[in-house]
């Protein structure tokens, strides 16, 4: 069977075979409900405890700081809405390039009396420290800045921002969904109040994520019920996915250095080829994730390019999967001051474990072919 080359790892990554192996017992004979007091329940509880320790270790946190959720979106919602519910309404400040689950959660707080502040980024996509300070000065008590952007891969220097937030007695949350497994993530060193993680971006299963939470932060749950996760997240634990998340974290940490180095080499090779084609790489002035390239070829529409690349056997994206239903240009690029027309040209390639030098070479050839073909068809060029 013809199988396209997968270059969309920031949307979701294939499950690691070793992770599947760790999950299968919980889809088989170890099926208990972790709240049950009999042996089936205890088996499930042990699996969750082990996974909690592994997730904590991967994020430089203590196991008791890990709250399992159904994924990154839920963790982002839980922190912003849950912390806001325990604070007097003031201002909530989120960077202009956050994931929709952060932006929309923050927007929901407006109806509860909160003021929404968007923290500007510079042309390279980095949060401006002055803009962050200004938000704090305007009374922001709740802030969120992601560690790495899902579209551009641009990294934020969160630790100094966390220091400023602490000095202003504000809570800072960081969405680390795209960062985990591609760069070191250390909850203590970052000094943030909370951190969002997701399993399926690091070779774990879809359906598991976590909020790492400083226990001094008061939080109201989003989902009430049986009182699981210290009452902060009710609902029968998804044992198989949690076990898979734990295993994926162990592997991510054990293999981080080699993996990141390999990805960076592939990305550099890709970017040399793109430069030769005259591509513009967004966020290239900033430090970025080793696996992500968000680029445009002047005069070519991104959607069209991605569709043509798909036909040539390469699966990439014109932006994040979460907003891929909308025809709007990437909000991340607009926030960086990229013109709408240029933003419409964007194509995201995000590399992963299964990719090698050959894929990159083949992709560059296909891209050059597609581009020259499209340029001869003025109707589709923008």
């Amino acid at each position, binding site marked *: 069977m013809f199988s396209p080359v997968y270059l*969309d790892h920031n949307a979701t990554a294939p499950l690691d075979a070793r992770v599947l192996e760790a999950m299968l017992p919980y*889809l088989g004979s170890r099926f208990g409900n972790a709240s049950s007091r009999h042996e089936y329940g205890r088996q499930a509880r042990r699996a969750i405890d082990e996974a909690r320790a592994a997730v904590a270790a991967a994020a430089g946190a203590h196991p008791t700081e890990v709250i399992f959720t159904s994924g990154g979106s839920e963790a982002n919602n839980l922190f912003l809405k849950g912390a806001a519910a325990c604070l007097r309404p003031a201002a909530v400040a989120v960077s202009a390039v956050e*994931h929709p689950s952060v932006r929309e959660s923050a927007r929901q707080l407006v109806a509860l009396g909160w003021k929404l502040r968007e923290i500007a980024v510079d042309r390279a996509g980095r949060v401006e420290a002055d803009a962050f300070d200004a938000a704090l000065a305007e009374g922001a008590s709740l802030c969120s800045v992601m560690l790495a952007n899902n579209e551009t891969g641009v990294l934020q220097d969160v630790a100094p921002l966390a220091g400023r937030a602490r000095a202003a007695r504000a809570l800072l949350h960081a969405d680390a969904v795209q960062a985990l497994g591609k760069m070191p993530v250390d909850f203590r060193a970052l000094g943030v109040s909370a951190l969002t993680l997701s399993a399926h971006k690091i070779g774990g299963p879809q359906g598991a994520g976590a909020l790492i939470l400083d226990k001094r932060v008061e939080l109201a749950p989003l989902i009430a019920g049986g009182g699981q996760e210290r009452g902060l997240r009710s609902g029968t634990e998804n044992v198989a*996915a949690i076990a898979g998340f734990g295993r994926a974290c162990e592997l991510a940490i054990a293999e981080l250095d080699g993996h990141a180095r390999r990805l960076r080499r592939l990305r550099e090779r890709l970017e040399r080829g793109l430069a030769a084609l005259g591509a513009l790489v967004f966020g290239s002035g900033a430090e970025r994730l080793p696996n992500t390239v968000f680029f445009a070829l002047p005069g070519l529409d991104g959607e069209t390019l991605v569709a043509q690349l798909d036909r040539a056997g390469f699966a990439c994206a014109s932006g994040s999967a979460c907003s891929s239903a909308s025809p709007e240009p990437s909000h991340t690029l607009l926030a960086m001051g990229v013109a709408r027309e240029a933003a419409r040209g964007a194509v995201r390639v995000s590399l992963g474990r299964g990719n090698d030098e050959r894929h990159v070479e083949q992709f560059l050839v296909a891209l050059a072919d597609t581009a020259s073909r499209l340029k001869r068809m003025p109707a589709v060029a923008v």
Partner: protein
Amino acid sequence: MLKLPIYLDYSATTPVDPRVAEKMIPYLTEKFGNPASRSHPFGWEAEKAVEEARAEVARLVNADPREIIWTSGATESDNLAIKGAAHFYSGKGKHLITVRTEHKAVLDTFRELERQGFEATYLDVMENGLIDLAHFERAIRPDTILVSVMLVNNEIGVIQPVAAIGEICRDRGIVFHVDAAQATGKTPIDLQELKVDLMAFSAHKTCGPKGIGALYVRRKPRCRIEPQMHGGGHERGLRSGTLATHQIVGMGEAFRLAREEMAVENERIRMLRDRLLRGLSDIEAVEVNGDLDARVPHNLNVSFAYVEGESLIMAIKDVAVSSGSACTSASLEPSYVLRALGRSDELAHSSIRFTIGRFTTQEEIDYTVDLLHRQIAKLRELSPLWEMVKEGVDLNTVQWAAH
């Protein structure tokens, strides 16, 4: 050869049917796409699988696939339905009605809404665990906007009269939510017939995987809810977050199997339950909790008088059962459901929920009956209360000395 402990706790969770697991595996290996990816076949393949599963879930309950919203489980579905509808319709009124024997996912959500300024009525149940319809009608107020009643109780398995409740709610323009987590595959559900506006489902109580559930949201007449999780706008904006394709596929397959096999399976399970009931009926001072007719065949909840609850659980370690629901079994409080039936603390403490399912065998039931006979006899031998009862003392007339 019997594998110990024998699993008789199917209402806590069920094994994943091997046929379900098999269907899930490809989505954990080569078909790993994000269903929201629109630009390549990995995404399309995942989206197609998600939609096929949605159709299967809808088919089991005779609904339109467009009325099914994926969630992480029934607890989330209950939260989304109750908070979502209460907030959406709060302009019409602030009064909500539910029942004392509901699952914690409903009761705790009601408590949260009370803290936010809603008023709630918690209906008592009759001694058989069912609600009294006349009593329910009297509880309705002009400002009642939402009623939540479970279809099948998780502890005693009784089936509430949701058809009649639905008629009453529809007549008065009240949104009606039903927690059906324990009902799918156990009793037929026809949402074309039932006047239910919202219904919560779970996969892992019906031989599907944990971590996936759904909420039915009626289109005609249209029921509106406010989303509780925001982000990428998945599930038509009602529930954001990347869909877990393999789990969704598993839920679809589990519900397909339930639809196809329910009739035959339930007869087999009823036979096993009746065998268990007959076997336990020989033991003295045994009482069944909850109505035996309006009840799913999977459940038998029994109180063993004059036996101490914790010792009983320890004595029958070879069978995995629970003394309440799994969600509250970490606490040593007696079951609030049994208390609501009027059982004393002591009797509630010495009650066992046996729940039978797809993989239970007759041999396992016979072993369980035999074990209970032996262990109850042994425990009562040590019980001074039992000795008094056997001597003909009416314990209610005894004046106990204070310590």
